[in-house]
């Protein structure tokens, strides 16, 4: 292609890139500043000397919420992907109008904002005695992310040729075995995408832990949020908390981003990639 457009494109990328880069940059330099520096310098000025003590201190404060979040989020991602796969497989295998209707029900529940069930969700969790517990938050996540996993897996499953499943039927395999030995192995990348996607979305979720727990300890986003109120103008602690809390999803995103992107595209366009 002609060079002129590449130049224009480069300028656009550079300008927007600067704006896109600014916040991460601020997060990193801000959390490396000492207490003294934080008082006087703007957010975007580089630190005069690198001080990791804030990061260390905040990390120590975050250890509980980090652990709690991992305990909630990792099983949620795996369980919802597994349960969703079962439903997706059943709907694909059974076919017909009822299956279509059920899939539509699942798809709509995936796109409806989950915030709307705030009142009943809190009441229900309280009735079950799960309010302010880790399983309670997990339950809240599963309500929303299991149908989403089913939708994602359904779109991935439709890419599997039906005659491979029929061949397994003729070979004598039952539904469980077909799912375990034939369908799931073929869905490897699809399952990975689903798990990664839900992992990132639940790690970053703020609303569900906010309404289902007291205090700030049960989920990392709550803990990060708690620094907004208590630290006043000491942005180094806030930034350190935000940075530490973002590292797990960022690492997953940077190294397994293609799976996350695939999940996004599948939800958006139904692309099977």
């Amino acid at each position, binding site marked *: 292609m002609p060079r002129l457009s590449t130049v224009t494109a480069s300028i656009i990328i550079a300008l927007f890139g600067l704006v896109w880069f600014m916040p991460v940059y601020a997060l990193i330099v801000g959390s490396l500043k000492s207490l003294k520096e934080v008082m006087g310098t703007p957010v975007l000025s580089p630190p005069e000397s690198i001080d990791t003590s804030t990061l260390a201190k905040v990390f120590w404060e975050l250890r509980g919420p980090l652990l709690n979040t991992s305990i909630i989020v990792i099983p949620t991602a795996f369980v919802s992907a597994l349960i969703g796969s079962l439903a997706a497989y059943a709907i694909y295998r059974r076919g017909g109008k009822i299956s279509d209707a059920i899939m539509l029900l699942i798809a709509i529940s995936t796109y409806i904002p989950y915030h709307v069930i705030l009142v009943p969700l809190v009441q229900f969790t309280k009735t079950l005695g799960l309010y302010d517990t880790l399983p309670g938050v997990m339950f809240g996540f599963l309500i929303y992310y299991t149908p989403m996993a089913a939708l994602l897996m359904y779109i991935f499953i439709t890419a599997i040729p039906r005659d*491979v499943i029929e*061949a397994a039927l003729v070979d004598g395999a039952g539904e469980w075995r077909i799912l375990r030995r034939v369908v799931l192995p073929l869905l490897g990348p699809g399952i990975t995408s689903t798990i990664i996607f839900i992992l990132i979305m639940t790690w970053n979720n703020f609303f569900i832990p906010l309404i289902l727990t007291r205090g700030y300890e049960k989920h990392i986003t709550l803990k990060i949020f708690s620094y907004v109120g208590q630290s006043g103008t000491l942005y180094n602690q806030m930034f350190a908390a935000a940075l530490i809390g973002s590292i797990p999803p960022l690492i997953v995103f940077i190294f397994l981003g293609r799976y996350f992107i695939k999940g996004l595209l599948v939800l958006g366009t139904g692309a099977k990639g």
Partner: protein
Amino acid sequence: MVSITVEGLTKIFPPRVVALDNVTLEIRDNEFLVVLGPSGSGKTTFLRIIAGLEKPTRGRVVIGDRVVADSENNVFIPPQKRNIGMVFQNWALYPNMKVFDNIAFPLEIKKVPRDEIRRRVKAVAEVLGIDELLDRYPRQLSGGQQQRVALARALVKEPDVLLLDEPFSNLDARIRLTAREFVKKLQKRLGITTILVTHDQADAFAVGDRIAVLNQGKIEQVGTPEELYDKPANTFIADFIGEPPINLVEFRVENGYIEDLGVELPGEAAGLDKVIVGVRPDEAVAAWEHLAASSVASVKAVVDTVVYIGSRLYLTVDVAGKKLRVQGLTGHTYKEGAEVIVSVKKMHIFHPKTRSRIVTLEA
């Protein structure tokens, strides 16, 4: 001893697609039956019902001495329990498993001990000449190799019946010839009752003991390849089988003779006022003079066009305003517009309304 009986088989896909319409057929023990039909004729549905992948709307299927489907008594045995081997059109190998595991899968389900699985997979792989490929994945194989793996997977559990769905259509022309021969020999050697479904008459003629021709969900004719070619039941069969296609031309009948051809019709045909005459291009020759003795008719004709099909020479000639394709004699030069004499060795006479064959005239 496994024969298959199909009685009154009907399959309707909602809302109103009639894929099979009251099909009755018997497949004998050890027989290689080919179901031949154009696309949309219902042949794949037929195979899938035998396999248990579809439920018949009406009718009965008996495999061996077991009723596997009976709409009246609500009997339906699912594919897992029918002990059949099936090869799918694009082979449907499990892409995530190596060749060995693909073949071993049916045995694994049957909980056959590991040693025996190994032994039986090796044995069947040897028969099919794929014992070198057991460590590969399906995507690393050529089309012909994949087909053999699919065959091995179908055969390893020693099924009562082998079902083949268009097994040659995804092979390129060169391998197809050897593959047909291979499948035919294998079937005879194993003596397994086999049904093959195809749209390609060359497939059917190469492997079938008998051929059932299916059209719009109905069986038009069942017979050996020779029977279908020599004694087509109706114009559909006559037209569907044979290459180049048969000439089917309507002629008037006058006083028991076919007008323009001067051929006397025997029996009931003589009483009609019109007939459809079927002449295969290979059974009619155009020459300069009347070729004596072996012909039922000789008529004057005018050369219209000349074409080569393969190494053979064919002419389109004009007989009393009707176009016929006939064979030419190699070594002759035919000019367009030249007058020739066409000698017909064999002629099928079909009823103009029912389109079924009344009689075949032969020299």
